[in-house]
């Protein structure tokens, strides 16, 4: 009768099995939390959003197409303008001087403070009658009817974009500052010795070094901007006359009107915009990691 003998490979596979088991046990709480907090809500939302009638009603709503247009314009202007300004400012803040560091602390404040009071304070300041801006115009120049900052559709939309940029600019500027700080100073010194102008230094050293970070940050910013509810809702409520909604606020408008299905549908229609961005961002990050 043969006696079973354990071999080294059995011991290894047993060890591996134990490690896998422990790994699974340790991972279980995270999987559970992920399933409950991410998979379930998303799946439930998609399930609610499966109602074809909701999409018919959504496309029949006259403000929907305008909202899609607004969202695209908002994304295009807000993200590009924000990053153009952030790129310029990062060049300023990267300078290592005490007073610039102090200014940087002040500059970060809009990003650091909570959205609701700050955006509402903009709303108060821009009120056409009682707001500080038009009141000063009245006091200083006798202008009775100042600009309709929040009542003229174009101005109100511009103000929403302005508030969005004001709020998120510090964060992206800091990201680009850290990117610039990672560039070896030797390169600039060498370029300077060779007589390169500031623009040439930017074009041949800064930009190639920051390009990956810039593009990845832009895509991430697009995803966040697409979901930015506060800047539009708190400032104008999507108004005047529902003319300035973006997809993030349109969903809330439907839900406020007890129309959950339409609210979900209006968010799901943003998926064709979000998913390619997420895909390209992940692909780009993978490439950068290689």
């Amino acid at each position: 009768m043969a006696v079973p003998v354990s071999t080294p490979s059995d011991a290894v596979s047993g060890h591996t099995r134990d490690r896998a088991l422990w790994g699974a046990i340790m991972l279980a709480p995270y999987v559970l939390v992920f399933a409950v907090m991410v998979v379930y809500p998303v799946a439930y939302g998609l399930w609610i959003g499966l109602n074809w009638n909701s999409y018919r009603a959504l496309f029949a709503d006259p403000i929907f197409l305008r909202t899609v247009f607004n969202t695209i314009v908002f994304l295009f202007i807000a993200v590009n303008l924000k990053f153009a300004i952030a790129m310029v400012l990062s060049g300023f803040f990267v300078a290592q001087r005490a007073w610039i560091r102090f200014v940087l602390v002040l500059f970060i404040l809009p990003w650091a403070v909570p959205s609701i009071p700050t955006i509402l304070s903009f709303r108060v300041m821009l009120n056409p009658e009682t707001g500080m801006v038009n009141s000063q115009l009245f006091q200083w120049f006798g202008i009775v009817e100042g600009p309709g900052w929040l009542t003229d559709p174009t101005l109100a939309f511009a103000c929403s974009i302005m508030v969005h940029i004001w709020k998120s600019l510090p964060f992206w500027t800091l990201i680009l500052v850290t990117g610039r700080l990672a560039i070896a100073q030797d390169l600039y010194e060498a370029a300077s010795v060779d007589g390169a102008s500031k623009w040439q230094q930017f074009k041949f050293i800064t930009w190639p070094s920051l390009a990956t970070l810039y593009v990845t940050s832009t895509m991430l910013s697009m995803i966040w901007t697409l979901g930015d509810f506060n800047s539009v809702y708190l400032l104008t409520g999507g108004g005047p006359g529902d003319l300035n909604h973006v997809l993030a606020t349109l969903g809330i408008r439907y839900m406020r009107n007890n129309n959950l299905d339409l609210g979900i549908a209006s968010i799901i229609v943003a998926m064709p915009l979000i998913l390619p961005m997420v895909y390209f961002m992940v692909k780009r990050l993978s490439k950068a990691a290689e």
Partner: protein
Amino acid sequence: MKSVRCLVTGAAFAAIAAGWSGAAVAQETITVWFTKGFYKGEDDALLAVVDKFQKATGVKVDLSLYSTEDCVTKSVGAVEAGTPPDVGFCTTYDFRTTGKWAFEGKLEDVSDVIEPLKTDIMPDALVGTLLMNDKTKKKAYYAFPVQQQMMHITYWKDMLEEAGFKESDIPKGWNGYWDFWCDKVQAGLRAKGKRIYAVGHPMGVAASDTFYSFLTFANAYGAQVVDENGKIILDQPANKAAMIEAVKSYANILQRGCTPPSSVNWLDPDNNVAFHNKTIAMTHNATISIASKHLDDMNNPALTQEQRDQAKKNYFDNIRTTQFPDKPDGKPLPNLAAVKTAVVFADGKNKKRGKEFMAFMMKDENLRPFVEGSLGRWLPTTKSGLASPFWTDGKDPHRALVYKQFSAGTIPFQFVYNYKFTAVNAENVWAKAVNRVVQDKVAPELAVDEMIARIKQIAG
């Protein structure tokens, strides 16, 4: 080991005994959700009813009070989840949910409670509770008419005088009335170097004030939107023409610059705030909450004597409540009234007792203090309630006007005849049409065509 066994056995007996006695003394309970009142008197009156009901029946009332918006949002969620309270009374149910719930069979038929009360309930208030149920294919009473609201005009008499006019100067006719405020009062105040607007004219799409005000203008021009069977008749030439005039008239106030530009974004409290700040000289508002704020202030011990005195002066001398001017055709304007409804939910756990609670609440001695606790903000739905000295003694200048206005008769909202108009109002197609004219500069005719098309999409 033995002691452990004894302890476990003892604990088990204790648990069984506690459970048994708990079951033996378990009190019957009903769950009731109400909108929290603006004033202490409303809540005190409600608590008194609850207390009396509990003593009379031995049934415990689990009462929750919610803010106006939370009340309806929470109710909608609970109904969708199949876990509603037994009784609900939110002051925006009528605008948003009652008709829909009745149509979908989510409400208990309360005809057996309403029928005996019918002789005392005002007919116009009763109309708002006789609702269609799609499951039974019949109309029945699915709600209790608890209180009502109506549209009024409120103005600062002292601002009118500052502009150089007396109350007797205010015209009675429709066009002359708005011209007076826009051209004369505002011009008078501006001549004194003040940046003041004559009219507070709600135009925000998210405000119920806007559709209430706009539909009052539509009534003034005789624009019929639906018939009594709920069929849309706005596209009939006469109604369409009247609606075009209503849109023109409503938009005109903004176009000539006599309402604050920010009124295009106003929410419900904003005209109240602008009035209290004296940014505007007059406004139209559903309920007399603007004046009542000063009545509440003058009795508020938390304020200084000086503030209370000023509030009293405002309430009795400086602020006036009036009715709308006569219609453009010279006839009196019918008053659009909204009936605030309480309901018993079909999925409630103890709906039988819930119905009993509402029957108890609807008794004159219980309902009247509750309605009157709102300082005149809400109107009674019963003839006996309206006959009380609170409304008839004429001592209160604001309530006296409301009584006069109310006694002239009211008309209901369209959603009473076609519940889908709650969605039309929620989307505020009316404000959108006005905004199309003032913001996008389209012709009123086109704005009304779009309005009709959208109404047919939603409610046709």
